[in-house]
Every structure is written in structure tokens, then in C-alpha cells.
């Protein structure tokens, strides 16, 4: 890499005076990447609630877990988390009920 390093060896490329600290980009809520697994979880959750279909509720919980696992730091706003929680609550409710019935 000596050929590459020629320029930097001659004089230090570093310029501390021009250093800017990192500014995290501002992301508006509309530009967030789509949370597919959360969406699927909600769909399954609704199906589970409407048709009392236990497997749906379980799938909803699994996708909910995936959605939470894939959450990014910057999306930690209350909205999404609460959605996931509502979904979880729904599905848990249904499962508990169905287990009781069985």
C-alpha cells in the first residue's frame, strides 16, 4: 500500500479543525421503514380474535417477537411499541381464553 500511502505519508491528511461531530439524521415518522412483521402480527392477531383460531394468535405472538427483535434504536417511539403491546395483549387474551375453554 505504499503507493496508496504516498500522499498521506508526505503530509498528515488529518485536519482536526474541520472535524464535525456526528449528527444523527432526522427521520420523520413517515419515512420509517415498514414494519412488515408487526403488520403481519396485527393481521394474525385480528384473525385470532375474530375467528377464535388459536394458531393465528400464536403466529401473531411469534411475529410480534420478530418485530420487537428487529426494532431499531431510532424507532423507539411509543407508537410502535404500544402497537406491538396491544397486539400482544390481544393475542394473549385470546390464547388464555381458548386454553380455558379447552
Amino acid at each position: 500500500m505504499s503507493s496508496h500511502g504516498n500522499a498521506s505519508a508526505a503530509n498528515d491528511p488529518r485536519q482536526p479543525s474541520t472535524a464535525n461531530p456526528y449528527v444523527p439524521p432526522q427521520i420523520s415518522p413517515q419515512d420509517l421503514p415498514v414494519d412488515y412483521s408487526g403488520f403481519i402480527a396485527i393481521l394474525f392477531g385480528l384473525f385470532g380474535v375474530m375467528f377464535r383460531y388459536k394458531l393465528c394468535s400464536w403466529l401473531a405472538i411469534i411475529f410480534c417477537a420478530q418485530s420487537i427483535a428487529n426494532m431499531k434504536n431510532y424507532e423507539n417511539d411509543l407508537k410502535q411499541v404500544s402497537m406491538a403491546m396491544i397486539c400482544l395483549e390481544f393475542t394473549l387474551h385470546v390464547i388464555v381464553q381458548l386454553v380455558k375453554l379447552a
Partner: protein
Amino acid sequence: MAKPKPPFFSLPQLLLILAVVSLFLSRLHVVADSHFEGFEADDEEDLDSLPTESLPLRSPPLTFSQPEPDPVPDPVPSDPVPEELQVPDSDPPKHPSSTTFEYWDEDEFEGLPIELPSPETTTTTTTTSKSADEDVKPSDPSSDSKASPETKKAGTSPRSSSYMVEIACGSFLIIFVINYFTGKRENENIALSWAAKFAANDSIFDKNFSLLGVGDGDDSPLLLKEGQNVFKFYASGRRYCQGLLATMELKSRHDLISRVYNMVVPCKDEISFEVYMNDEAMDHVVFAVAKKKAAKVMQKEVRDLQRFASVLSPPSGRKWVSEELAVISESKEVAGDLISEAVLDQVFGEKAFEKFRKGFISMHFSDEHLGTHKKMLLFKFALPDVNNMADMTRLVSLIPYYIDLVGRYKLSAQARSKTDAARAKAAQEAYKELQNARQDALQRKKAERRRLLEEAEARLSAEAIRKKEAKERSRQMKKGMPKVKMTRAH
């Protein structure tokens, strides 16, 4: 009745409903049977628990003699007189003669209770009926008892199958959680080993940038963890550029579902560098290198490449990049200057590229990027294994090399005039688009204002009409008033 049962039972969710329904059905079944055979012996039991449907059929037996005449006259009109003791005597002979007892439940039924007080004559019918009674009587409880075990069996088998669902999903969840932690650690290890290799003291980035890491101060963390598989590294304080942002997008090792998916559709750990160039340090350069297929896609899809550049054919009489690679550039001059001998030797030449085939994905320099930073250098590499991070050293050292090369690069006057023209044209187009958008917005506003005005006018006209009406009314009132006054005056 038996046919619909199997599918019902196979659905475990409908368990309870099923059980109830099956109980119901079994009851009805018995009822129907007894009804067809025409015995009232069930009455005592049935009356307690029978559904209302069967009640009308049974109601005649409850009121012994009075309803009898009604059915009796139909087949045999000979017994009009309702003497209760005589009726049974005369009735029994009719029954065997008629023998169509499906219709004549009630008749047989009449015979029975009355037969008990006078057991002389009606031997045949009563015996048959009695035996039938006895047949049915035991069969009733037996059928009931049969029905209930059936439902119990039905109850137990879905229960076990439903637990199967729980077991499967629960164990999947547990594996998911375990995988989450192990995958998370794997990804962190990869990111940390990359940072240790290239951002520690005396490493490439340390020698080239004065500020490393995402926070302020000296002991700021080098990496910013944005998700379980996204890590960011920031560096700043170098000539020609404002900063560098590296984004590592690793495989979703923490996510079991995508892990399984990636077994089918494999993907790589990628790292992409964005170098934000100083505005004055970068001339008109639109240039990209990628593997041939990817280059075609980029040329079609990336906007600035699409607008300003085209895929170059390798020039004759010169050492050029490996055959696997394609160069996209605005002009041959730019491409020729940016692909220097040194780079060909070290990375992109036919021989050198053998080593970097896996690691190199693409490289894209442009002064016309969309977004806040227009002048950017983008590099995209695939990360090697945790233990082989040194494999990508040369690729990473391309970054400072190109920052300097592009930062110092000046186009020749000839090429510059061309690129100026192209940018002016593009700018004009953009301006036109903007103008169009603005005009559209203006027209929309105007239309809205007009609509509002029209609405207001409509309201006004309605008010005017109302006023007119009011005036008319008052005028008529006035016409009427004098008369009243006159009368009053009189």
C-alpha cells in the same frame, strides 16, 4: 347425523360448541327415533328435557281422551262418541288393521295407557308395543351414554392436538429468544472486530481522520448500534471531506425467521461508506465501478448515473479493470484518470481482483447525489469473517486514496465544458419540474379559493332569497294591515 361429526371433531377450536351440538343432536336423534316408532314411554324423560320442537307431537298424549277423537275420525270415522272406556276396546283392532303406525303414533299411544286398565283383548298390539317400548327404553339411556363418551373422546383428542400447537409455538419462541441473544452477540463480535481492525489506534482511519466515533470527546464509542444488525461508524476531520459514515448491515442473525429465510436466499454482511466531500473539493465527477450485472442495474436505477453517465467499454491499448467489472462514467477522461495504475495494481487489475472478488460490491462517486449532501463518494464492500478482517484492508484503504484523488482532481477545460452543459441542462429540467410543481400548487390554491368564493356566494344568494321573501311577506302584511286598522278605526 353421523356424517357431519368427523369434520367437526377434527377442528379442535370448536370443541365446546361441538360438544353441546353433539349432545343436542344425540338427544334429537333419540327423540326422532322414538317419535317414528310412536311410543310415549319416553314421555316422562322427554318432558323434562325435550326441546320445544317435539312438544307439539307429544301434547296429545298429555290430554288423554279429548284430543283422541280428532285423530281418530280421520282414518276411522266410526267412533264419534267419546266414551272413554269403550274407545280403547274398539280402537286396538283398528291399529293392527291399519298398521301404518308411522302416522298413528298417537293412536297406539292412546291404546297403551288404556290397555293397562283393561288388559284382555288387545294382546298382540300391546305386546308388540310393549316390547318396542322396552327396546326403546333401554336404548335411550344407552344411546345417551354412548353419546356422552363420544363427546368425551372428542374432547380429549383435540385437547392433546391443541397442546401440540402450544408446544410447537412455545418451543419456537424459546428457540427464537435463545437465537436472539446468540445472534446478537455474533453480530456484535463482527462489528467490534471490524472496528478493532480499522478504527483502533494506528489503524487506517486513525491515521486519516482526527475524530473517530459517534460521540463527542476522546473516549466516545466508536460504533453506534442502531439495530441488532446495523452498526454505524463515523469519522471526521480530514482534508477534502467533511466526514465519513460507515454503515454495517449484517445478516439478521438475531432473527430466527430471517435466518431461516436467508438459508434459502443467502445474503452477505455488507458495509457501506459514505464520504461527504467538501463542495469546493470535488469537480464534476460521475463515476461508478461494479460487477457487470450490478453495473447495468445501477446505470438504469440510480438517478445521477442514469442522467449523466453510461457504461464504458474497456479502452484498447491500456490496462483496464478486471473483466468481471464494468465502469460507468460520464466521460472516458474521468474514468481513465480515476482508474490509475496503482489502483489497477492493487485492487482492480485482473490478477489483484481475484482476491477481492468476494469483498468488493460497488463504488460510486458523484457530485449529483440526491439529498442533503450532493457530493459524495459511496463504497460498498462485503465483510469477511470475524477472523479474516485483514482481507479487506486494501479495499478500505481505497477510501482515503480516492478521497485524495477526487479531492485533487480537476477536469480538463474540454471535458468541463461538456459536463457544464450537461449539468445546466439537468438543472434546467429540475427547474422546470420545480416550476411545474409550483404552478400546480398555485392552480390548486386558486381553484380552492374559487370554490370557497362560490360557496360564499351561494350562501349569500340564499340569504338574499330569504331577505326577499321576508320583504314580500312584510309587504303583504302591510297590505293587510290597513284593513285591520280600518276595522279598528271603525
